[in-house]
């Protein structure tokens, strides 16, 4: 590991200003320390934000929650309000990593974790994320876990988070603190960028900008489901995951919010699905058609071709479960 200096932040603005000068925030460290051991992240200075007073989950006046960015994944998944009213978020968190990692991993850090593309992790192989302009070994490589939506000729990596998929489905917003001390709010959905020709630029945050809180609006009406399909029963990243909130009234879909994981460089808001469902009868035919509409633009790269029909079927199945169709539980 490359040598670095370390400081423990006591003030969010000062921390942001220090990182803007050159350095990295560190919170749970479950991804960053690993990347530092691999020599992929080489910060010269670490600013530890774990002891900033950002570990509370508060009710908002709007009936939502304001979640401190330093709330651990365990604490968020176990929060009684989250379990009861935003269950898709609790389910998504618990589907990710292991208990040991969830005990360390933070809410803010989970959003900003890096891809688990094997070529990104292997400095001997070409990767435009790691070294812009060097090429992408995954394009012609073993790309079974890679993206089918929103990818480019420069990068086909996926974002690995489960939590962020549920956050996008729930319409979460991020409260950010700039090095100047000013604050702004963005949609969680707008945080990550698609790769285009700059896959090393992964999100919309300015240098030093710190995620302080994540705000959940009141739960969208309807039933919430998170389903993750992966190679092992536990402790594996998603091949495809779906977070859905579907409201059905007298046999018709009144509203739906759907997001996908494991398929793109960002948590993928499934807008085609949502549009295709609006005011349609809540039937398996509707759900299959909606899933097909989302995947119409999907592109496989060989080893990951199977993800296209897989995603189609998982979406349709999750929608049926969320809509309460008979026999739709897995």
């Amino acid at each position, binding site marked *: 590991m490359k040598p670095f200096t370390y400081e*423990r932040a006591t003030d969010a603005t000062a921390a942001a200003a220090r990182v803007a000068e050159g350095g990295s925030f560190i919170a749970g*460290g479950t991804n960053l320390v690993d990347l530092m051991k691999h020599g992929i992240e080489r910060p010269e200075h*670490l600013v530890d934000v774990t002891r900033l007073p950002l570990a509370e989950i508060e009710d908002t006046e709007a009936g939502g929650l304001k979640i401190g960015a330093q709330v651990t994944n365990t604490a968020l998944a*176990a929060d009684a309000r989250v*379990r009861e009213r935003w269950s898709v978020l609790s*389910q998504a968190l*618990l589907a990710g990593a292991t*208990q*040991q990692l969830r005990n360390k991993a933070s809410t803010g850090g989970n959003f900003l974790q890096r891809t688990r593309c094997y070529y990104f992790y292997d400095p001997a192989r070409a990767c435009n994320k790691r070294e812009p302009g060097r090429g992408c070994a995954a394009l012609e490589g073993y790309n079974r876990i890679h993206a089918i939506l929103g990818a480019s000729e420069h990068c086909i990596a996926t974002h690995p988070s489960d939590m962020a998929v549920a956050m996008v489905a729930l319409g979460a917003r991020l409260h950010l603190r700039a090095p100047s001390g000013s604050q702004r709010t963005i949609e969680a959905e707008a945080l990550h960028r698609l790769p285009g020709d700059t896959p090393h630029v992964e999100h919309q945050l300015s240098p030093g900008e710190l995620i302080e809180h994540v705000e959940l609006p009141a739960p969208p009406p309807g039933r919430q489901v998170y389903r993750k399909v992966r190679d092992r029963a536990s402790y594996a990243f998603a091949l495809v995951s779906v977070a859905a909130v579907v409201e059905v009234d007298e046999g018709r879909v009144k509203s739906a919010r759907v997001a996908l994981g494991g398929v793109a460089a960002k948590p993928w808001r499934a807008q085609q699905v949502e549009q295709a469902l609006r005011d349609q009868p809540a039937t398996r035919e509707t759900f299959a058609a909606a899933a097909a509409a989302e995947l119409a633009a999907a592109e496989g790269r060989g080893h990951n071709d199977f993800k296209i029909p897989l995603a189609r079927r998982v979406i349709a199945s999750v929608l049926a479960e969320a809509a309460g169709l008979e026999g739709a539980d897995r």
Partner: protein
Amino acid sequence: MKLTVNGEEHELELDPRTTLLDALREHLGLVGTKKGCDHGQCGACTVLVEGRRICSCLALAVMHEGDAVTTIEGLGGADGELGPLQAAFVEHDAFQCGYCTSGQICSAQGLLGELERGEPSAVSPVGGEAPTLTDDEIRERMSGNLCRCGAYANIVRAIGSVARGGGER
């Protein structure tokens, strides 16, 4: 920096790169905690920090200044007797080579606390209901601890016996 390990306070001077795992093994001589993959994937390095299990290989020691750490050396009973989980692992033949065992037992100790606090896992009921102890719960909650000897069936039995015993831990 100060670190309390198994109830004893230590004063350490460390390179910021030192992981909690290396601090325990190389600086404090507590070699019960094992280095397996060193990347958070195998669980051999599991220790408890403030009662919660973590992978000590992915934790920078300096970030845990002032924290209370419990390692396998701290889970024994008085007078060198085995703690309940340690005894159960022996009783149920829950290991072969033993390399993963410290991590398995520290992890299981963390699991007991999580169940006591009613914290859910991926196989718990969705909603507010408290999880109940089943073998599926133990398997899911222990998925961060690999055992290359494949002693899993007996690890589940050993943990279940202590968790259901309800007696001393």
